[in-house]
Structure formats: structure tokens, C-alpha cells
């Protein structure tokens, strides 16, 4: 076992040194930018995708290190998690995704709490996850910001793609404040509207205020609200907020989103659906294994998340959650899109990641069979052209 890790270490180091040029050959390559390629190859130069096509079309130039895989997909994107802010030990010292002092804290930055070397970051990287949309957990009305980060695992400065991706909002039971405000759904909406109205009226020459600064960006549509809303009543409230303030929102969770397909479509809103295997209960009582598939089939852009877990498992793995959707009626390629290109689109990073296309970051996941089969293995994960994981997981 030790030898194995040692070998892996040298391979990784070697790969990093030889970052420049790599050819990844796959029996099947799901580019997510067109039909899958059989017996394909991806050429990588300086961390970016240089070419992609069949092995007969593309000649591997001399000096390229060749990596073989059975199935290649874009590096997976977990569209909503708390990994890195919350750690695997679940002890007070590694749980940083919620400050309970007050219910509205849009100024809390995820980058100030993200631990790039957290064990869970390495864990999901081993299953092919290369990008996380992570941040404060849905347990307060406005728990804080989210960020987008690669799972490279070096440090927050190097790994971060987007410092402030969204401001998280929690509607419904999870966003109530025990014994204090907000104590009801109606109060949640009242408090949220009051915050946004206050920011609208803030004078440009007023003294700096961290809350106002971030709300201004939301009102200017620079940053969306990521609104955790599970029940239909909460989803409707979220859509109303978006309409009233003309802001961008993303629905997070959406257990009952299949009841509001028409409304969500008309509002042009995307949904990052709860983990497929999330436990039914509370506001999620009516969740279904088929929701992501139904929304996508109706034309809504859908991603699938690993979400927030308070206990065991401390994180879910988005690969398994998408697999379960594929096993329950979601079109196979739609399920893969929900953790690659569609997730990238929702997060606004599809120019950089989410598909295997020329000029994009060379983030790849490699498998020894159908990635969605529970018995398949992830055989390698590549970020920016570096093999960052070669454990067989």
C-alpha cells in the first residue's frame, strides 16, 4: 500500500513537471459538446484543451505523454456543496459554513473559510469532481456567500475560479431562526425584501457597509441569489422576489419544483436539484428520484448537487447522485450534463469548464466503465492538464 502511494506521488509530481503536453486516449469520450467520440483523443497543451477528436483524425504529436482511459468525461462539477467550509470530522473547529449570530449575513465570504486541503476535497476529487460551487450552508435566511473553486487542493488563492459566485438564501423551515426572527415564512420574505429595499435606497456617498456592497451587486445582476427553496410555496416566493427586484436567482433544492414547471420556465430560472438520494422529510418530504429528469425534459436547465449534510455521510458524491437520476428516468446524457456542462452554464463558468472543447481548461475525469455504474471506478482526475488523482476509487 505504501509503495502504491509512493508511486502515485511520483506519477503526480512527474505529471506536474511534464504539465506541458498530454494526450488522453479514451475508448469513449463524452465531450458534452456534441456526440460522444468512440476511440477518441484529447490533446492538452499548457493546461488547456488543444484538440479533441477520433484517434484516426488526430495524430498525437511527438513528445506528448499518453494517458489511456476507457471512458473520459469532463471533470465533474458539484453545483452546490459546503465542502471545504465544512470538514469531514464534523467538529466545531471544522464546521465553518454557518455563523449563527444573526440571520442575515451576505457579507460572509466563502473564500475566507475554504480549506483547500480538507479531506473531503481530496475525497470527491478521487471520484472525478474537479469543480465545486461551495459556500455557506442553507441553515439561515442569508447565511453568506458561495464561491467556485477547483478541487486541486493546494490553496484557496490558486484554486479559486470565482470569489463570490452567489449569495445564499434559505427559505422554509431550514431558514427559520429558533425563537427569534424570522420565525415564519412570511417573516422571511418580509426581512429579505426589507434588506434589498434598504440597499436600493443606499446613497452612493454613504460610508462603506459590507452588507450594502454585496446587495448592490445582487441588484445590479452581477451576482445571483442562490435561493434554497424546497416546497412549492417557497419556490413561488423566490420567483416573486426575482420579479420584484429584477434580480438573477437560482433555485437550490427544488424538491417540489416539478409542481411549478410552467412558472419556473416562464421566469427563466435554473434549478440545482437536491441530491437525488436525499432523505425525504421536513420540507423535503415530497422529493422524488425523478425531479431532475422531469425538469430537464421540460426544458429547464438543471444541475444536480451533493448539498449539505449535517452528519453521515458528511458529503454526498455528485457522481452517485447523477447516477441515481440516470437510473430513474433521466436521460443518460442529461444526467451527465447536470454535473458537467449544465452545471457550468448555471454557474456562468461554461466558457472555461464543463465540456471537452478547444480552449477550455483541461479538466477531465476517467473511468474504467460506465461512470454511473456503482461498480465502475474513477481511474484518474485531471485539472488544468495535471493528473491530480490516480487513486482507483
Amino acid at each position, binding site marked *: 500500500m505504501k509503495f502504491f502511494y509512493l508511486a502515485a506521488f511520483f506519477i503526480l509530481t512527474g505529471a506536474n513537471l511534464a504539465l506541458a503536453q498530454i494526450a488522453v486516449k479514451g475508448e469513449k469520450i463524452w465531450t458534452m459538446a456534441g456526440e460522444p467520440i468512440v476511440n477518441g483523443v484529447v490533446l492538452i497543451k499548457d493546461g488547456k484543451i488543444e484538440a479533441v477528436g477520433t484517434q484516426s483524425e488526430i495524430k498525437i504529436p511527438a513528445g506528448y505523454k499518453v494517458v489511456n482511459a476507457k471512458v473520459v468525461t469532463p471533470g465533474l462539477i458539484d453545483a452546490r456543496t459546503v465542502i471545504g467550509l465544512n*470538514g*469531514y*470530522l*464534523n*467538529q466545531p473547529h471544522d464546521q465553518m459554513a454557518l455563523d449563527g449570530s444573526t440571520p442575515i449575513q451576505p457579507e460572509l465570504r466563502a473564500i475566507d473559510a475554504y480549506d483547500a486541503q480538507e*479531506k*473531503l476535497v481530496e*475525497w*470527491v476529487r478521487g471520484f472525478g469532481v474537479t469543480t465545486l460551487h461551495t459556500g455557506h450552508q442553507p441553515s439561515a435566511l442569508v447565511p453568506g456567500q458561495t464561491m467556485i473553486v477547483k478541487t486541486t487542493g493546494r490553496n484557496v488563492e490558486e484554486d479559486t475560479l470565482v470569489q463570490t459566485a452567489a449569495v445564499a438564501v434559505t427559505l422554509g423551515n431550514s431558514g427559520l431562526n429558533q425563537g427569534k426572527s424570522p420565525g415564519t415564512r412570511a417573516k422571511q420574505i418580509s426581512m429579505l425584501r426589507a434588506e434589498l429595499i434598504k440597499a436600493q435606497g443606499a446613497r452612493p456617498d454613504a460610508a462603506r457597509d459590507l452588507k450594502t456592497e454585496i446587495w448592490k451587486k445582487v441588484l445590479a445582476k452581477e451576482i445571483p441569489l442562490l435561493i434554497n427553496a424546497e416546497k412549492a410555496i417557497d419556490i413561488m416566493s423566490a420567483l416573486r422576489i426575482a420579479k420584484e427586484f429584477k434580480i438573477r436567482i437560482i433555485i437550490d433544492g427544488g424538491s417540489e419544483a416539478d409542481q411549478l414547471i410552467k412558472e419556473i420556465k416562464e421566469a427563466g430560472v435554473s434549478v440545482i436539484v437536491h441530491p437525488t*438520494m436525499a*432523505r*425525504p*422529510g421536513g420540507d423535503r*418530504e*415530497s*422529493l*422524488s*428520484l*425523478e425531479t431532475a429528469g422531469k425538469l430537464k425534459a421540460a426544458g429547464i436547465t438543471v444541475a444536480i448537487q451533493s448539498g449539505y*449534510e449535517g*452528519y*453521515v*455521510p*458528511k*458529503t*454526498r*458524491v455528485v457522481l*452517485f447522485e447523477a*447516477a*441515481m437520476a*440516470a*437510473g*430513474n428516468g433521466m436521460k443518460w446524457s442529461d444526467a451527465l450534463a447536470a454535473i458537467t456542462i449544465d452545471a457550468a452554464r448555471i454557474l456562468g463558468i461554461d466558457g472555461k469548464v464543463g465540456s471537452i472543447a478547444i480552449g477550455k481548461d483541461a479538466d477531465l475525469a476517467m473511468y474504467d466503465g460506465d461512470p*454511473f*455504474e*456503482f*461498480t*465502475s*471506478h474513477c481511474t484518474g482526475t485531471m485539472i488544468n492538464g495535471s493528473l491530480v488523482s490516480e487513486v482507483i476509487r
Partner: protein
Amino acid sequence: MTAEPLRLDRLELSLHFRCTFPENPTNRRLRMQKVFTVFFVSILCLTTVVMAQKESTAFINAKIIPIVGQPIDDGVLVVQGGRIIAVGDRKSVKVPADARIVNAAGKVIMPGLIDSHSHIGDGSGADGSAPIQPDVRIFDGINPRAGSLQRAQTGGITTVNVMPGSGHLDSGQTLYLKLRDDAIKVEDLLIYRPDGSYFGGIKFANGTNPIRPGGGTFPGTRAKSAALVREQFIKAQDYREKIRKAAGDASKMPTRDLAMEALVEVLDGKRVVHFHTHRHDDILTVLRLKQEFGFRLVLQHVSEAWKVADEIAKAKVPSSIIMIEAPGGKLETMDVSMTNGAALEKAGALAGFHTDDQITDSRWFLRSAALAVRFGMSREKALYGMTMANAIMLDLADRIGSLETGKDADFIVLSGDPLSVYTHVEQTWVEGKLVFDRSRPEDYLIAVGGFGAGSDRVFDLDCFDGDVYGGGK
């Protein structure tokens, strides 16, 4: 033949109860009409069921994974009176001439899954009054209508060990239940021995869950935890000795003590100890206790089994493991490994799986086996761990766990490879009765989720389509 009249007795009783209405004094006449209707329909139901029990059913053209013995490609399974009367390939099995034939072409049939550690059924156990409460029975706290029992049926689970929690050194007695349909009382789910007693174990735990610093009588350290348990077993040894000395003389018997009675059953090997334990040192502590007091044991969770697999194998103790898709969640599971199944298999130890529902969901219990295979366990041992290994741990290996002649007709019909994410449990059969059928909309809802899926079971008369609530729904 002895089991059959029993089953019918229970059925009659259950129908009687099922036809009782909630009180509704304003609508008495209508209610009486309905009672008569339901009574009539019940007799029809009963007649049908009796016929079903006598008639044999043959599932043909299936791929059969009997667990004991090799998979059979062109398999036939014949069930009658709640039992398996034949299983084998088409050539070796003679299908009775009057058998109902079910064409299972393209399907996979395997034994009903056995979950050796679950919390379905809304069960409760010990309260906060003491760390060791062997007197408390989950038997007295099961809700036979709990929706969680139905959800487990959709996952192909036919037998389950329901346990109280791990917040005590001993949180009480567990129950082994058959997930039969239409139970109205816990007795309808029990598995009886010939002497009329029912199967169940007892739950123990060590590690951090039962430790409550400053918690009065609860332990504050691991050493204290072990000492408290040893003290109780020594007390039980004394109690047993008093009973032995009394030699049947009632006047010399010790005063009845429910806790001691349960622990004497443990010392006598009649009640298996299901010991929640995570860390390698805690696992070895359990083995040490077993050696001292000689109780029969199943290690539960065993998160660090991979560190002490040889020791577990040497002690000849079975393990019931859980597959969790990420490490941690609490300190003592930081080193939990998905390789536990493979490590135990390699060491030659008996390993089964459990859901610990709701830690993992009963509806996709088969996924546990698939993940174990992903991390190095053989397919054969993984499927064995879902069925036969657990049957052995629950002392039920002569009745369930494999498809063999004479065993209970507990089996599942799958759409394909049991380890594939694309496979669904299509039917679950318990003792020859279909308890889950994915093609029924109400069953599908429970399997997949959606509005109403979380509700507890409502009255459901198979051949009565009326309004049993008397007031409209």
C-alpha cells in the same frame, strides 16, 4: 403444514380489524351498510387468499441467483403455501400441472434482502434514566403502519433487525421482523420459534455515542463504559446462578428482574448481542467482553474493520457493515473505509450489510453491495452479505437467506443485474405474498418519491375499493 393454519388465524384477525371504522356517530346507518359490505368483501378476500395459499406458483425463464449454489440461467422457482417447493433449472424442476405460471424472462430472482441493522418502524428503546436498560423492548414501541416499513419493501428487504439507538451502552432488546403486508400490530410482523417465542437480539454500543461527560450514571470514558457493562454481566451471572440453585423451587427463585432476565438470555446464548462499535480499539474491547462472558455476538458498523480484520476473523465473530460514501461525520468514523467488506472477506470473516436506515435508505440497499464490490469485495460475497450472511447472524439461516427447497418464499424480482444502478426491484415477495409491485401506482410512489410518499400506511383493502374512512377522503 403447522405454519399454515397459524397464518390463516392471523389473517382472519387482521381482516376483522381492517374492517373497523373510525367512530362517526352522525353517519351510523351508512356506516352499518359499509360494515356489511366490507364483511362480505372480506369473506371473498379470505377465500381468494386461502386458494392462493394452496395453489403453487412457478416463476419460469428467470435468471435465479439462489445465493447457496451457482446462479441458474434458465431457472424455475416454485412456491406454495408460503414456502419454496422447488428451485433449479428448467430441466431439473418439474412444475406442478396446476401451478400458476409466471413468465419471468429477462428478470433476475434472488432471495429477499435481509437488513441486519435498521431503525425503520418508528421504534424506541431505552430512555435517559440509565446507560444499561436490557429490560426495554423495541417490541413495545414499533408502529406497524410506519411508512418506513413500506419503503423497505420497495428496496427488496423482506427481513429486518430493528434496533433501538446507540446512545446507551445497552438500549434494549431488538426485533427481527418479516415485512409482511397489512400488519396492524407488531405481532403480525414477528418471526416465531416453534415454542411460541419470537426472534430478537439485544443492542449494545461502545465508543463515543453512549459517553455523556457529566451525564450522571452514564459513562464519561471508554474504560468506564467497559466497566459498567462488565458489572452488569457479573450481576446477571449471579442471577443465573440463583436460578440454577433454586432448581425449579419457586420459593427459592430470585425476585423477578426484567433486566437480569434479558441478560441471562444473553449469557445462555438465546439472545445475540448486536454491538455498535466503530474504532479498532473499541472493536477489540467488544471481542474482549465476549471472551469474558461468552455471549454470542454480531459486530455492528465496524467502521475500522479493515484495521483489525484478522482479529475479527480469529474470534470467529460476524460483522454487519455499512457502506457510507464519505469518511467522517464524527470523529470515530474518520477512518471508515469502503474496503471493509473486501478486508473481512480476505480475512475469512463473515460479513453482512445493513442500512442503519435512515443513515442509508432501505430503498437502495442493494447499492451497498455494489459499492463494496467497487472497493474490492467479490460479487458472490457481496450478494451473500445482503442475504445469507445476515440470515446466519440472525439465527434464521434455516428459514431465509437463500432460495432453497423448504425455505420461506421470500424473494425479489429484479429488472436486471442486482448491482447495477439501472436495475429496479420490481417485486418483493414475503412468504409467497406479493408485498411490493412496482407496476402498482401506489407502490411506485413509495419507491420513487413524490407527494404522499412519506405518509404512513393507510387502510388498503386489496379487493375493496370503497371509502373505508366513512367521511370521505
